[in-house]
């Protein structure tokens, strides 16, 4: 990757994108794991996610790990216990 130089950056921190370009996934220390078999498709995780990092998928939901900060709210709110939090990096 090209090394970033002082002359390459603008006078203030203006991104060239909207917040979609802010990939906050690497802030995560805990990772949500979704068990699609247990999922009742109620959509609580999708509604409660404060980062809009869960999207409806056919028959279930998809966690966007690019943005998920690992707060665990989805796991806490899931009435079916389909989401478990695991330490980031563990198998």
């Amino acid at each position, binding site marked *: 990757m090209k090394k*970033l130089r*002082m002359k390459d*950056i*603008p*006078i*203030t*921190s*203006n*991104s*060239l*994108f*909207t*917040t979609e*370009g*802010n990939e906050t996934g690497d802030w995560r220390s805990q990772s949500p794991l979704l068990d699609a078999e247990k999922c009742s498709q109620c959509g609580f995780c999708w509604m409660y996610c404060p980062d809009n990092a869960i999207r409806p998928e056919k028959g279930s939901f998809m966690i966007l790990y690019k943005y998920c900060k690992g707060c665990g709210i989805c796991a806490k709110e899931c009435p079916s216990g389909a989401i478990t939090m695991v330490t980031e990096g563990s198998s």
Partner: protein
Amino acid sequence: MKNVISSNQAVSYAVVSAKPQVIAAYPITPQSSVIEMIANFCDRGDLLAKFIPVESEHSAMAACIGASATGARVFTATSSQGLALMHELLHYASGLRLPIVMANVNRALAAPFNIKADLSDSLSQRDTGWIQFYCETGQEVFDTIIQAYQIAEQLLLPVMVNYEGFILSHTYEVVDIPKQEQIDSFLPLPPQRHCLDVEDPFVMGQTTDLYINFRYKLYQAMEAAAIVCKNVDTKFQRNFDRGYELIQPYYCDKAEIILVTAGTIAGTCRVVSDRYRKRGLNVGVLRIRLFRPFPKDQICQVLEGVKKVAVIDRDFSPGCGGIIAQEVKSALQGLRAHIPVYEYIIGLGGQDVTDDMIETIITRINNTKESEGCTWIGLLG
């Protein structure tokens, strides 16, 4: 055309001449008549701007930041507690590099409550990244507002124009208001800059670990600001036959004592200086007009070789003393010569600063070899 107006009115006329597109302000004594008049101008159609009556100064600056981020030329005015309430957003304005122009009418900060002149309100905002001017006359206030837009838009830094409450804000004097064509040719439309645009969205001032690099860019802009302010003043002199420089020395060549001050106290000091020169003591006066960036090189040039320097502050930082005195002492480090700096606190909360008081200061300086630390003038016995 020559008009007999107050400095607050001078600001309002200057703002009409500079044609900002958005004005957001909240009234506060002694600034209120500035925005009352501007609101009237907007209502009558003399100024084609969006006037946003906000619920606080915090919101006033927030609205100015938002408007300026879209590319609009903006204006606001405040004073004392209002400026203090804006504090957080002052950093935002400079950090986002927005060319906002603000008039601040210097007034004492509570408590105890006092609505009269005191420079502590704006001097205590010195680290917010705003360029700061301190004016002495209504004419200078008008002209500095016009200059401020040009400076702000060249450097992409916000500019604060300060002048003392009541002493200037409500005092009527002759102010020449140039023809609109003259102002337009001095102050054309602002150059293009990277602005918020719904067609091409982006995040302005987003979270970044490159923070220190952006602060460095702000530092560089401030380092360049003194020259830009000087050049804009020179251009102003060419166009309007009057100018102010960054600092104003008065009989400082060969002076034994130089009184350093800001704002209207300089006028009283000049009267006393004339009196002493007739008696055979050369007393010079140095008025600091530009406070941020602090023009230390120019100040050192004037103060070099003088026996004694006295800084007269209508402001103070508890635990430190006069704010301008600290800056002057720091600037003098560049000279590597020992010049005693006498520090005086005077006129806080609008107390009259009389010629007798300035004479008292000069007598004290004459009678003491070394500075006595921070000395307060005009206290109860």
